[in-house]
């Protein structure tokens, strides 16, 4: 009998298992593929290694603007993939080490729920006082004829590309699609993005997403908004434009990045009456499902689909299951889009505040108010936007676009988390010269 069995070894599951292990609990973790989950193997980490290489490639191309002359750089896709695999392997070993040090037993195989406290893996049954479901998500496959043809990639298979494509058509202008759009654009691929909605980066603050569209279009990425992809035939993607006209494009590859769906099938959830939909298992802020003793965290809940949100959800669930009161304060979970330029945000968007009828004040400053930003980015553009309550000035949301913002958004997250008021935040000293000073200036601009 275990104190806890975690199903799924991604950033939600393995961190939670280690946390419980360090509390002295008897813990097992079931994983059917690689430890580290989507984030480490086919998500955040591989994507960021790709983007690091593409940024370096672009910087080499732009080096002359900084007074540095280099020859014509070449992008070696195979080497980039090899580097990615090396980093993934190193971090994967790290995960194994974390689990080992915390005394977590790793069970390999596919878990199936038998009862509220029993799972079956490869014919053996295991019992636990608590089950934490952290089975994650997989790329969504929209019902588009031809979506699974040989020239179509998804956010898993794209990491195996061995050469730079000349053209790529990306279905989906969400965070994942946009990151790949930036990657391919920077390495010289002609990129077109097809988005169903009238804006890109859905969920981001409207002002940020509009600025992002402007910047990416200027970089040469072609956007088709309010477009419906009809079918894929070989290298041809057929779509209906905003005004309903039928059109098509040719591309070496078509990348499906229409989002991710929770892995809720083939687990036996229905056997024990867990409340779930295809969009995920329903959980409380404490990580509880409707069944006592069964908990869930991460993408399988369909809540935030962010690695760090999954980790926090897992820790919260473990804390609660072993008697420490805790909850996920979703309003203070930051998120980052690793496009070039990056986008980082935490808290409520202006649209959310408006819809909720919350009175707010706002301040928007260009990122170039920070000298460091100009130093780092010869032709950089960006902005920082601060939203706060109109009566007390508590910081409700911070949204930024511009390279460097991913590193300082945590400061804003602390402010949102602790409901800091903008007047008090003004007393914080920001180091000079850093890009973070743009946040300080944005806060100072709230009147």
């Amino acid at each position, binding site marked *: 009998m275990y104190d806890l069995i975690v199903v799924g070894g991604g950033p939600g599951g393995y961190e939670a298992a280690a946390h419980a292990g360090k509390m002295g609990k008897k813990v097992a973790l079931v994983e059917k593929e690689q430890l580290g989950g989507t984030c480490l193997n086919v998500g955040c980490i591989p994507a960021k290694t790709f983007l690091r290489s593409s940024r370096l490639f672009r910087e080499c191309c732009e080096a002359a603007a900084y007074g540095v002359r280099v020859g014509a750089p070449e992008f070696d896709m195979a080497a980039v993939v090899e580097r990615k695999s090396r980093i993934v392997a190193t971090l994967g070993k790290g995960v194994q080490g974390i689990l080992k040090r915390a005394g977590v037993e790793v069970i390999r195989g596919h878990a199936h729920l038998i009862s509220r406290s029993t799972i079956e893996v490869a014919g053996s049954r295991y019992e636990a006082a608590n089950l934490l479901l952290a089975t994650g998500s997989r790329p969504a496959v929209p019902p588009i004829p031809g979506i699974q043809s040989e020239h179509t990639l998804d956010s898993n298979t794209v990491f195996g590309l061995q050469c730079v494509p000349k053209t790529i058509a990306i279905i989906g202008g969400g965070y994942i699609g946009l990151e790949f759009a930036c990657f391919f654009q920077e390495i010289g691929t002609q990129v077109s993005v097809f988005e169903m909605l009238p804006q890109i980066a859905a969920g981001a603050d409207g002002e940020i997403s509009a600025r992002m569209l402007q910047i990416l279009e200027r970089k040469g990425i072609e956007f088709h908004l309010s477009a419906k992809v009809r079918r894929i035939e070989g290298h041809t993607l057929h779509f209906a434009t905003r005004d309903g006209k039928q059109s098509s494009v040719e591309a070496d590859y078509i990348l499906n990045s229409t989002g991710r769906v929770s892995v809720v099938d083939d687990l036996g959830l229905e056997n024990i009456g867990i409340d779930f939909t295809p969009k995920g298992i329903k959980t409380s802020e404490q990580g509880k499902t409707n069944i006592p003793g069964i908990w869930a965290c991460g993408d399988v809940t369909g809540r935030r689909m962010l690695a760090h949100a999954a980790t926090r959800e897992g820790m919260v669930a473990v804390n609660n299951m072993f008697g420490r009161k805790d909850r996920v*304060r979703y309003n203070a979970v930051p998120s980052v889009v690793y496009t070039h330029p990056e986008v980082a945000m935490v808290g409520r968007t202006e649209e959310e505040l408006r819809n909720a009828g919350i009175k707010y004040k706002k301040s928007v400053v260009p990122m170039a108010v920070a000298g460091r930003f100009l130093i780092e980015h010869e032709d950089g553009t960006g902005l920082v936007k601060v939203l706060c309550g109109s009566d*007390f000035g*508590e910081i409700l949301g911070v949204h930024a676009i511009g390279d460097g913002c991913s590193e300082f958004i945590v400061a804003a997250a602390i402010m949102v*988390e602790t*409901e800091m008021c903008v007047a008090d935040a003004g007393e914080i000293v920001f180091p000079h010269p850093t890009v973070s000073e743009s946040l300080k200036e944005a806060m100072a601009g709230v009147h």
Partner: protein
Amino acid sequence: MAVAVEMPKLGNTVEECLIAKWLKEEGQPVSAGETVVEIETDKTSFEVTAPVGGTVLATFFEQGALVPVFTKLFVIGNPGENVEAFRPQSKGSTPAADAAGSPTPSARNTSPGGQPVTATDASLPHSAAPFSPRARRFAEEHNFHPRAVSGSGPGGRVLEADLRALYHSSPKVSGAASRRVQDGAEAPLEGSGIGGMVLASDLDAPETRISGVREKIASRLREALASTAQYTLNSSADARGLLLLRARIKASSTGPDINLNDLVTFCTVQALLQVPALNVLFLDGRIHQGRGVHIGFACDTPRGLLVPVVRDAQALTVAALAARMKELSAQAVQGKISADDLTGATFTVSNLGVLGIESFTPLLNPPQVAILGVNAIQLKAVRREGKVEFIDSIGLSLTLDHQIIDGAPGARFLKVVREKIENVEQLCTI
């Protein structure tokens, strides 16, 4: 030769310092330069060292005592030497002595561990509350003014360490929440934020003071309940005639504007003419018969419930009654109604039927002895000649003061009201 060591003067404005901690006790050996006692002012702390080696022969003050500068603190010498010559004369004070009102140096701590000390925001910085100067300074710097804190100093004196420990162990209040607390919101002991931080969402909504009108309503209703013996009878009347009449009035573009409530009120006035026993006031143990039917009607206004009164309603046609009610309710809603038009009713009608209420308990407006609640019109099944049919029916809830009106006469009056409503077409000449 014994040597006495005085409390040093740590600054131009410093008149007294606090004994923070004795590092040596009486009878302990000490070498020259070794720290014997730590003292503190509200700004700094300082170590007092032994000027010579020897034995600590006497310490004159307890930890936590406030000692004037240049007062002798302790004596170093050889065991057996007399120290009485050095003992200060009732100048320094311990907190315990403060409380007793008779300062005695070296008075012993009578309550080790200390009792929780109540301190309020206002009293902290200036009062003689048993806070050490450094504790006071800590409280001010951290804007931390707990309601209760246990002091570990003598007599429960709160030391900086006590406050610091409490500060770091108690949940914090977020910036947004603390501003709301200053505005009057009540904060729980523990919140749902990071480390138990109290967030704005953990606070109860701030209390709202009720308006003058609401206050009057509240006290009248309390009095009404306290001074009467209320009970409610529920019944219903066939409303088909009422609805037909209303439909006819609506259809005629030239006729007066009379709504259902006007019609029911008119029927009530007619019923009161027939049963004058309910058109009375009960005052000081006496029953006063109403000279006319002064009918009050409940009116929902932005300032709360008002009850305008139509005087001598018995003299009015239904159209005139309707016109007067409209006039008075418009004034009530606009806040322009005169006080005279809000008093003197002998009977009240309250209509919640328009809001879909099917039955309720109207509250009496003493000294009146009855109030009629008018409810929504609903379909009601009735048996006629062996068949069940559905008719429109209007609910009536009559609250009475049992002190004056018993159940049966009350029910009989309600029956009369019902009959009037059911025959409203004959009753009204429009």
